[in-house]
């Protein structure tokens, strides 16, 4: 057992637990977007950041991927932490304004409007990559992937060529935290191999 403090409270953790696991185990809430128990943590959305303090030094780490260590002092909602969360949420509001989940979460942080330009009012996808990881790690089908880099990144079939790997299981739709996958399912997942099974091929 490891012992550390979270928000001033002494807590225990098993070796191998992340800070997020540890916090949740002790009923401390940390918001997440790209995390799901069913798949490997990814560390992408950074909503789960927490502050680690060591003497005068402090830094932010993503709690979903950072391991619990003996003696850590963790703060889950310091000003530094909340500032990062508010900025991410405000930017998400302009990026995927159609997501009710994002609007709600932003609202909890007092972010109800965005100073940034809305590009596509219909957009819901936050590019958390959960659908891609679930399809690969849970289903083993690898039918969807992220394509492109940086601001051009999107969810699509690998190399944007519709494949035949999708088994139409709907896992991606289930894990999607924003409802985006439901809306783009037909477009990005390619053609299910069950339908495409062609004799002799």
């Amino acid at each position, binding site marked *: 057992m490891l012992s550390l403090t979270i928000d001033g409270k002494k807590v225990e953790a098993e070796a191998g637990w992340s800070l997020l696991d540890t916090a949740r185990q002790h009923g401390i809430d940390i918001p997440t977007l790209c995390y799901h128990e069913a798949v490997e*943590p990814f*560390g992408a959305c950074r909503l789960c950041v927490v502050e680690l303090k060591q003497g005068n030094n402090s830094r932010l780490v993503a709690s979903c991927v*950072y391991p619990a260590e003996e003696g850590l002092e963790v703060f889950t909602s310091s000003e530094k932490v909340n500032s990062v969360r508010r900025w991410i949420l405000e930017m998400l509001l302009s990026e995927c304004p159609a997501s009710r989940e994002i609007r709600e979460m932003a609202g909890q942080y007092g972010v109800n409007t965005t100073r940034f330009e809305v590009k596509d009012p219909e957009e819901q996808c936050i590019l958390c990559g959960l659908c891609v990881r679930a399809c690969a790690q849970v289903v083993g089908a690898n039918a969807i992937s992220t394509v*492109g880099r*940086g601001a051009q990144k999107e969810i699509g079939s690998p190399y944007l060529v519709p494949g035949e790997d999708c088994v139409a299981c709907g896992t991606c739709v289930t894990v999607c935290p924003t409802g985006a996958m439901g809306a783009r399912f037909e477009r990005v997942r390619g053609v299910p191999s069950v339908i495409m099974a062609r004799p002799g091929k």
Partner: protein
Amino acid sequence: MQVTAKNSADMRLGSLEELEKLRSELLAAEDPDQTKIIVCHGTGCVANDSPSVTKALKAALAAAGEDIKVMPGIKTTGCHGFCSRGPLVIIKPSNIFYQQVKPGDVEEIVQKTILTGETVDRLLYVHPQTGETLKTTEEIPFYSGQERVVLSNIGQIDPTDIEDAFKAGAYAGMAKALTNMEPGQVIEEVTKSGLRGRGGAGFPTGLKWSLAAKHQGGQKYVLCNADEGDPGAFMDRSVMEGDPHAVVEGMIIGGYAIGADTGYVYVRAEYPLAIKHLVKALDDARAHGLLGENILGSGFNFDIRINRGAGAFVCGEETALMRSVEGKVGEPVPRPPYPSDKGLFGKPSVLNNVETWANVSRILDKGADWFASLGTEKSKGTKVFALVGKVNNVGLVEVPMGISLRNIVMEIGGGVPGSDHFKAVQTGGPSGGCLPWEDADLPVDFDSLIAAGSMMGSGGMIVMDERDCMVDVAKYFLGFLEEESCGKCFPCRLGVPRLRETLNRFSKGQGTLEDIDDLYSLAEAIKAGSLCALGGTAPNAVLSTLRYFRGEYEAHILEHRCPAGVCKDLITYSIDPEVCTGCRACSRACPQGAITGEKKKPHTIEESLCIRCGMCMESCKFGAIQVI
């Protein structure tokens, strides 16, 4: 050179003694009276057609054959760092330095310098400030101000000839390490030298190695980061092109120290000459028994593979680089686990930069104490910089750590054209920041640069003058990083474009002072929240320019004015009728036809047609065109 199986067996060196014997034999075979003509065949000089100079030189020497007592040798080398003056020809041992040599100049060089020892004065370097004509490399401040450790053999040896490298001491440090030292002692030596990584963050190399070495046994890897993606940077390319053996040797030493039997060089595919020289160096090293099994009879087995990177900037980040070598998407992954525990293919791995590896070779050869005598207390040794921008001597320079910015730019760099100072020096590439003239005496070392809001980075150094707009510069670097962001984590993918958009508005004269406060806040969130150092350092360009040049930001926002005359929406071009001669150069240069006027009478610019491209200004020989 074709290496057959048989003579490759013959060439194998079985021990340190055999290597040293070969080295002495090669040195003894040299003719001390022979003049050597060095022609630079680095990428820069080759682009300026130095191979034709070499060809002409061979022909001229052959033609003059009978008159020459001892036929000079011609040696083609890697980059001498002064590419802007290329093609370079240097006559050894007197070190006469000829610049911008064309094939047509060669006959005169042979007739005068080779036959009678006179110099061809028009090919010599002229000091940009004093106007003095300087004859040898030692007299030229660009070289005399440098301290060449990593670059010591570059420009001296033929990088495709391992025997030439032997003569310069190649593999001596490695032979010593493998023969006379335990792996732990090698790590101790590197630790004692104080070497810190040259790839950006300055992490202590010895410490990095010891973290990987503590895993007993099992598969491990060493890797060389030759991704060099910073715009304008060519330090690592020059090292690989000009002295590939220094990198190979360093990696063998590192492999021995941590217990790895395989090394990877991750090099960008856009570096064909570097790859070619590296491949040749690896082949020759193998043929001499310096790679492969039982190296120099030590029982240590090691080999190196080359991995060509597709060129994404983010692939230079260590975790992304390892994923890319594994054949996966080149995106960063969270640390821990650190590569020293779980790196390439999940095995303990050490990744170092090209220059770091080259330093390792020198340290094992000359000793940790020698290395630690160079530089400052916490930044030992030297650093190679690519000095570019508004500076007279553009090129690659190596200086001791702790030297001042003023010394690098004003002495070695020969100063700023048309000015007695620089406005700013940008260090650290896209991750770095801009330092003002007020900081000219700042010692250039890892910690001082960080404290000043910039960083060492891999060694880019861009000199800027009063015609460079700091808002525009920050915008440029953010634009670069926005393009290169992998898009995995949200603060970087979403935040960097937002920073750039805000600056975009400033450069149009829009925005408010509150926007500057928001900029600080968002910048801090991106720095603190991003997954990898690309996002973690991306705001530096904004933060450092705001720190030192806030007045310039305010001029854009409050006065709708770009003091440097760069931001197109805030400037107008006009012609001073007193100065204009009516030569028509500008009206011909203007792509918009915005300039009219009678011949020999003052011309005028129609503002509504002008797209502010500045072509007219460049074309005017009389300086009649102003920008306000």
